[in-house]
C-alpha cells in the first residue's frame, strides 16, 4: 500500500506502533503497522482525525452486503414492517434484520475500515449515548442513529453531537422523553431524560447539579417527542401544547421563555459547562489510555475542550499526541472489550469478513451484544466489566473457531501457519505476528510445549489468541 521504503523496525518502535493501533484502531494488521511506520505516527493520526478524506472503496463494497444500514427510517418501515397478527414470520423482512445488518456492518468496519479511529470513537459515543436497539420503534431508527446522529459528529463539535442525540427518535424513545409533557395536559413530567442528560451525557454524576435542576431541565424538554411508526416515519416532533411554559432556572441560569428554544438553550449551557469538559475529557482518556486516567492528560484534554468550545477533534488530537499517551507503562494497560477482542483477532489473522453476522455473534457471545446494553450507561470497557467466566470461555471458543477457519462468512488462510510444523522456534514468529512482541516467558513456554507435543497449528494459534497478552490492549 505504500511506496516509501521502510527501514527495519526496532522492537520498541514496533511496540509503540502496536500500542497506538491498539487504542486508536482495532489492533494492528501487518499491513497497517508497516504503513504507520512508513508515514510516521503523527501523520497517521492526522489522517485518522479527518475520516472524510480517507478513501475507502473496499469498505463501501463490503457494506453492500448489509443494505438496510443505508436506508432511511421511512424506507425501513416499508421494507421491514412490524409483523401483523396472522402474518407468517419472514426472516428476510423481519425488523430484527435491521439490527443484524447493523451489527455485522459495525464489525466489518472495525475489521476492514480504513477510518479506524472513527470506528473506535463511534463505538465510544454509541455507548456514551446508549440506546436499546431492539426496544419498540428503535428497531427502525437505529440505522439512522448510528449513521446520522452519532458517526458524523464523533470528530466534530460536542454540542452538535449532543443536540443530534437530544432530537434523535432513538434517544427520545429510550429515555422516555417522547412522553414528557406538562402536568396540565393529561400527561406528566418524565424526568428520565433530564436526569441522564446531566448525569451520563454531560456534567457527570458529580457535576454539581441538584434534583431541582433535574426537574427544571425535564420541564424544558416537555413537548420533545416522536411521530408514531404507524404514521410511516418516526421523526422528531415538537408539541407546543405539551410544553411547560412556566419560567425555569438551570444551574442557577435563568432560561429565557421560548418553547422549543428552551431545550436548545439548556443543551448549549450543558455542552459548554466546565463539568462537562471535565467529564468528557476523563471518559475519553479512560477509553483511549487507561482505566485509571492519568490526571495530567485529563487536564490537558479538558483544557483543549474548553479552549475550542468542545471541538472533539482537538481533544482527541491532544490525547493521542501527548507524550504520556506513548508511555510504555500504558502498553497493554487496558482489557479488550468483546468487540475489540473479536475485531483485533480477525485483523491479526488476516481474516476476510464477507458476511459479518457470525462474527457479530461472537461479540454477543463474549458478553456485549452491540447496541443492546439495557442500562443507559452502555457497555463498559473497564476490565472488571469485560472479563467473566462465561466471557473468557467464549473468547477461547472464538479463538478456536477463528484459528480453524470455522466462522461462517469469514475466510482465513490457515496455511499461513504451516511454519508452526517446523518446531518450537516458530513460536516466536507467531507471537510477533499476533502480539507484535515476543510475549512473556510463560506464554512462549506454553506454546512451545504445544508445538513440541505436535499440536495442530490451529490449536497453537488459538492459544496465542487466548493468551493474557492478547486480552490486553
Amino acid at each position: 500500500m505504500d511506496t516509501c521504503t521502510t527501514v527495519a523496525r526496532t522492537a520498541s518502535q514496533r511496540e509503540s506502533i502496536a500500542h497506538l493501533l491498539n487504542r486508536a484502531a482495532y489492533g494492528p494488521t501487518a499491513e497497517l503497522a508497516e504503513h504507520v511506520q512508513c508515514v510516521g505516527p503523527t501523520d497517521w493520526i492526522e489522517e485518522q482525525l479527518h475520516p472524510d478524506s480517507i478513501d475507502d472503496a473496499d469498505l463501501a463494497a463490503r457494506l453492500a452486503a448489509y443494505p438496510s444500514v443505508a436506508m432511511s427510517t421511512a424506507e425501513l418501515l416499508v421494507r421491514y414492517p412490524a409483523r401483523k397478527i396472522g402474518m407468517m414470520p419472514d426472516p428476510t423482512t423481519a425488523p430484527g434484520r435491521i439490527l443484524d445488518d447493523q451489527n455485522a456492518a459495525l464489525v466489518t468496519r472495525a475489521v476492514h475500515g480504513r477510518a479506524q479511529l472513527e470506528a473506535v470513537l463511534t463505538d465510544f459515543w454509541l455507548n456514551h449515548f446508549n440506546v436499546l436497539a431492539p426496544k419498540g420503534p428503535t428497531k427502525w431508527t437505529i440505522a439512522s442513529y448510528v449513521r446520522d446522529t452519532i458517526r458524523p459528529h464523533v470528530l466534530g463539535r460536542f454540542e452538535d453531537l449532543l443536540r443530534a442525540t437530544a432530537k434523535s427518535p432513538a434517544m427520545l424513545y429510550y429515555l422516555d422523553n417522547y412522553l414528557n409533557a406538562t402536568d396540565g395536559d393529561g400527561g406528566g413530567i418524565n424526568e428520565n431524560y433530564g436526569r441522564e442528560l446531566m448525569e451520563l451525557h454531560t456534567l457527570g454524576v458529580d457535576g454539581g447539579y441538584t434534583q431541582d435542576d433535574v426537574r427544571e431541565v425535564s420541564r424544558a424538554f416537555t413537548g420533545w417527542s416522536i411521530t408514531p411508526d404507524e404514521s410511516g416515519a418516526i421523526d422528531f416532533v415538537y408539541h407546543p401544547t405539551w410544553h411547560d411554559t412556566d419560567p425555569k432556572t438551570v444551574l442557577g441560569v435563568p432560561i429565557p421563555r421560548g418553547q422549543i428554544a428552551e431545550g436548545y438553550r439548556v443543551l448549549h449551557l450543558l455542552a459548554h459547562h466546565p463539568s462537562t469538559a471535565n467529564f468528557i475529557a476523563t471518559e475519553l482518556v479512560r477509553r483511549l489510555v487507561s482505566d485509571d486516567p492519568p490526571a495530567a492528560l485529563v487536564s490537558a484534554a479538558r483544557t483543549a475542550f474548553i479552549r475550542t468550545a468542545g471541538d472533539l477533534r482537538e481533544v482527541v488530537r491532544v490525547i493521542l499526541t501527548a507524550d504520556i499517551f506513548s508511555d510504555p507503562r500504558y502498553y497493554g494497560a487496558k482489557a479488550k472489550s468483546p468487540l475489540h477482542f473479536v475485531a483485533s483477532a480477525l485483523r491479526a489473522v488476516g481474516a476476510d469478513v464477507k458476511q459479518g453476522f457470525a462474527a457479530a455473534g461472537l461479540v454477543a457471545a463474549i458478553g456485549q451484544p452491540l447496541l443492546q446494553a439495557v442500562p443507559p450507561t452502555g457497555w463498559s470497557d473497564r476490565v472488571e466489566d469485560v472479563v467473566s467466566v462465561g466471557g473468557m470461555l467464549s473468547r477461547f471458543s472464538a479463538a478456536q473457531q477463528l484459528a480453524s477457519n470455522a466462522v461462517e462468512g469469514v475466510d482465513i488462510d490457515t496455511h499461513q501457519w504451516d511454519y508452526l510444523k517446523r518446531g518450537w522456534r516458530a513460536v516466536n514468529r507467531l507471537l510477533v505476528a499476533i502480539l507484535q512482541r515476543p510475549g512473556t516467558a510463560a506464554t512462549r513456554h506454553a506454546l512451545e510445549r504445544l508445538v513440541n507435543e505436535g499440536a495442530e497449528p490451529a490449536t497453537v494459534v488459538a492459544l496465542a489468541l487466548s493468551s493474557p497478552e492478547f486480552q490486553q490492549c
Partner: protein
Amino acid sequence: MLTPRCTRRQLLRSGVGAVAGLALPTRFILGKGVAQSARRVLVVIFQRGAVDGLNMVVPFREPEYYAQRPGIAVPPPGEPSGGLDLDDQFALHPALASLQPLFISGELAVVHACGSPDPTRSHFEAQDYMETAVPGDKSVIDGWLNRYLQVAVPQSESVFRGIAIASSTPRALAGRANALAVSDLAVLSLGTGQRGAQTRAALATMYGGRSDLPAIVVGETLRAVDFANRLNPDAYDPENGAVYPSSVLGLQLRQIAQTIKSGVGLEVAFAEVWGWDTHLGQGASEGLLANALRDLGDGIAALRTDLGEAFADVCVLTMSEFGRTVRENGTGGTDHGHGTAMLIAGGTVRGGTVYGTWPGLNEERLFEGRDLAVTTDFRAICAEIVVRHLGFTALAEIFPDFVYDDSQRLGLIS
C-alpha cells in the same frame, strides 16, 4: 441514585468482600471441602413475557373472571377441564396438575395479586425493575441476587455460589459478585480429547503466574471447567424416578438439581423461560398457555422428586414481570397488565395456602380500571425468603429503597 456504582475493581482494591477471597489461594477442592451443614439454596424461575396469573391460579369464585373472559376462562373445579381446587376460592390451572400434590403436602404456596409497584407495562423495564428489585430506578446496574452474594457471608469460595443456566448473565445475577452463566453446563468445556487437555494445560501455564483480574477469572474458569468435566452433565441420572420435561426449562432445572446435589457450594440459582406473552390464542384449559404451564409444573415437580431429602433446604420462587389484562382481548389472548401470581415451593415453605390480599376483579378495584391490582410488593416475598430461608437479615443491602417490617410478613416460610 440508590445503589453506588461500586465496581469489582474498587472492591478488589479495598480488599473486602467475597470477591477479594477469590484472589487468595483457593482451598476449594472438588467434591471435598464443602460444608456439610445445611446449605440453603434459592432457585428463581423467571417467566419472561408476563404470565397470565389469573389463568395460572384461577379466582373461580369471581363472576367478573368469567364475564371478562368468555373464550379463555378456566372452568371451575368439578367441571370438565376445570381447575384444581386449592382453597375453595382459587384453583390451579389443570396443566399444573403435577404441582397439586405439593400444595396438598404443604410444600407449595401461592401469593396472588403480587407484583411491582411500578406501573410500566414494558417487558424490558419491568423485568429490569424486578431483577434489580429497585423499581423505577434505571441507574441500578446490579441484580438483587448478586447483591445477596455480595453481602452474605460466602458458604464456600466456589465459583458456583450463583449460577444461571442461561446464555447470558440475567440482570438478577449481574453485578460485582462473581456468578456463572452458561446455557448448558456441558458448555463448560475447553474441547474434548487431546486438544482439550492441551488447551487446558496451556491456559494454566500462560495465566498461572499472574495476579491481574483476567488471570483470576481464568483461574475460576478452569476450576469451573474441571468441575463440569467431573459432573458430566450429559450422563446425569435423575433420582427417585424423576422425569424432567425435554424442554429448555427441563434442562435448566435438571442441571440446577445436579449442581445442588454435587455439594459444590451453590446458594442461588436462576432459570428463565420464555413464551408467556400470550397476546394471541392463549387458550383456556388447553392451548399455548396450558403447554407453557405444564412445562413449568412438570419441571418443578421433577426437581422436587429428584432432590429427595435435599429439597428440605431448597426454596423455588417463580417470578414474572407483570400480569395480564383481566379482559380477554380481540385475538383470544390478553395484553400487558399489572398484578400476577407467584409460586413458592420448598422444604421450608409453609405451603397449602394462597397468600396475599385479594383485591377483587370488579372494575373499581382494578389497577387503572383494567388490571389486577398489586396488593403484595414482590420484594416482600423476596425479602421474606432472604430472611427466613437464607437467614440473611441486612435487607437494606439487597433492597435499598424497600422498607420491610414484620407487618409485611406473609408467613410463607417456617
